[in-house]
């Protein structure tokens, strides 16, 4: 103990940092700001440190070469002692870090912490959000498997939609005409040098400003932010009723950070590393590419948007959204801080969280994707065939053989791109069924050139029987009218 103290004393004599560190640690913060609500930022920072440590470890083994990356990931998972665990820590650490950054941002927004004089802290925070998401995406690329390969395909297809220079941008993003060796090294450089450097610098700036401007006071409904009086009010509050950051606020940060590290450790140990999935071989097209969870919502939007506005929305939407976040404190920098008096802000957060949740859920199930093995893997329910004649049964065969099942469910099994057909006969008459099958429409391909007249007749005969026992099939009223005398 004495040795440690004398060593520290020796160091302080030369560095002279001791006083500054002590002063920083003991700087007073508003009593109510030493709150459990204020722990997310330091939690995200702790996870960032874990990401740096585990990332350096992974870089000792990982080979950033398109031909070797997949193999080196296999070595990490199965041969390198504890390689699987380091990969799992890095993967789960990234998931938790993205989640905490978002939680931190929501908390800061709802508590009005972005208002005067902390506008720039928020703006740097938006840059940190973009950098964190950039790390998440480039990290997903370094896990060089089928999802990474086709994820790059999606990225370049979006870039290719830029007017005039789209083709050139794709070339620069990919480092050549196709997704290959130079694409991976580019994303490696971004993930390991460029974005981490930016993150470290910006985190430093972010923390510096938190120290300089003080931790946001816990909002009180009715206590408005005024540019002329706020700083004096804050200083008065801290002087009268402040508590030292260490240990009063810091202890909560410490407990939360410890819990988060524990959670990452637990998830890594129990659930293991993420992938890699299939080998990044573009000739293996039996694949269902999906992005990691924090980008699934964009994936869903790309499926659900009307094609006409898609290019505009993909290219203009994200920059506009980020610009809005970035400039928000300049536009709403004073006034009420408490979320209790900011209903629009609360609704906006609720809408964003709800939208994100719904789109992510849709991305997980992706009902817009055809179920490509339904035609051979999911038999027609027996109840639809019992006691039916030869033509109807032949129609059921056509229904399966022509893969209608990829998009249409029967008995809750099959694709959900088109409507389930268990009661189609109650909605469409015989003639309407013929028309729909032959000409398609309403987002259904036309099968006119693909079905013989006999096949079409059988198929429609089968579809006509698909109605509940207590609901009769639809009839063409004009056909059923009594003859005119």
């Amino acid at each position, binding site marked *: 103990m004495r040795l440690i103290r004398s060593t520290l004393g020796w160091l302080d004599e030369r560095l002279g940092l001791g006083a500054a560190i002590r002063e920083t640690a003991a700087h007073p913060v508003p009593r109510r700001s030493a709150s459990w609500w204020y722990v997310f930022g330091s939690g995200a920072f702790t996870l960032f440190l874990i990401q740096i440590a585990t990332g350096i470890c992974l870089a000792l083994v990982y080979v950033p*070469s*398109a*031909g*070797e990356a*997949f193999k080196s990931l296999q070595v990490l998972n199965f041969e390198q002692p504890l390689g699987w665990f380091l990969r799992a820590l890095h993967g789960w650490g990234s998931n938790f870090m993205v989640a905490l950054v978002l939680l931190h941002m929501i908390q800061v927004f709802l508590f009005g912490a972005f208002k005067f004089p902390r506008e720039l802290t928020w703006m740097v925070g938006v840059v940190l959000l973009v950098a964190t998401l950039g790390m998440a995406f480039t990290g997903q690329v370094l896990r060089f498997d089928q999802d990474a*390969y*086709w994820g790059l*395909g*999606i990225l*370049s*297809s979006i*870039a*290719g939609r830029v007017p005039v220079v*789209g*083709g*050139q*941008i*794709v*070339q*620069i993003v*990919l480092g*050549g*005409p*196709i*997704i*290959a*060796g130079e694409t991976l090294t580019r994303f490696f450089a971004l993930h390991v040098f460029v974005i981490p450097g930016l993150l470290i610098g910006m985190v430093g700036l972010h923390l510096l400003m938190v120290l300089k401007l003080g931790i946001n006071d816990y909002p009180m409904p009715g206590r408005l932010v005024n540019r002329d009086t706020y700083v004096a009010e804050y200083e008065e509050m801290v002087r009268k009723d402040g508590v030292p950051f260490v240990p009063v606020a810091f202890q909560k940060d410490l407990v939360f950070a410890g819990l988060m590290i524990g959670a990452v450790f637990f998830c890594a140990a129990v659930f293991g590393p993420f992938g890699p999935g299939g080998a*990044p*071989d*573009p*000739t293996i*097209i*039996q*694949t*269902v*590419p999906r992005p990691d969870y924090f980008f699934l919502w964009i*994936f869903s939007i*790309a*499926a659900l948007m009307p*094609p006409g506005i898609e*290019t505009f929305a993909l290219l203009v939407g994200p920059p506009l959204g980020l610009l809005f976040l970035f400039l928000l404190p300049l536009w709403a920098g004073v006034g009420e801080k408490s979320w209790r008096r900011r209903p629009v802000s609360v609704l906006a957060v609720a809408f964003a969280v709800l939208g994100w949740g719904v789109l992510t859920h849709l991305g997980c199930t992706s009902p*817009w*994707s*055809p179920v*490509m093995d339904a*035609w051979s893997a999911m038999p027609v329910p027996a109840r639809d065939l019992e006691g039916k004649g030869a033509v109807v049964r032949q129609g059921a065969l056509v229904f399966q*053989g*022509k*893969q*209608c099942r*990829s998009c249409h469910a029967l008995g809750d099994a099959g694709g959900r791109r088109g409507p389930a057909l268990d009661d189609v006969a109650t909605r469409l008459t015989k003639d309407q069924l013929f028309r729909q099958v032959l*000409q*398609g429409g309403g*987002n*259904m*391909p*036309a*099968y006119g*050139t*693909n079905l013989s007249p006999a096949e079409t007749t059988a198929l429609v005969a089968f579809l006509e029987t698909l109605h509940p026992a207590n609901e009769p099939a639809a009839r063409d009223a004009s056909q059923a009218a009594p003859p005119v005398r």
Partner: protein
Amino acid sequence: MTSPVTRRGLLLKLGIALNAVAGLALAVPIVGYLMSPARRKSMRDALTWIEIGELSAFPEGQTRMATFRNPSTRPWDGQTADIPCWVRRTKGNEFQVFAVNCAHLGCPVRWFPQSNLFLCPCHGGAYYADGARAAGPPPRGLFRYDFKVENGRLWIKGGMMPTLGNVIAAGRAPKGSPCA
């Protein structure tokens, strides 16, 4: 006589100017290096004729997958330089060669001879046998490669991942039609 202060000021200005020139000189090769993949020449040269197989490998009236090694490749590209495409032989020496990349966002479309459709696993794009858009979010039909037949072998002009920004064979793509 000029005072020493002015001389120091001059040296400072000179130093700033010198560094500005040096920085600019340094920026030119760095930016050139970064932007080199987008040079018009390297983009034009990316597309070359590639042999993808004997004609007998592509029966008439059928759509088969063919794969080729991308012409511009690095030794460490591994499997990523093996590029697939869909070859449809309509009759005789009439071919349609489609890129596997969906025109929507680049995912690999699969051919289903049962329903005569290309289906995309990502966002549900569907195309007819002739590559025309059938359903879903794609803004156009499948991308097509130029082809030629020489000495009983099929060649395509490829070497670049097709996107809406760099259509591999401009003007030869089928327009989306509601009924093909």
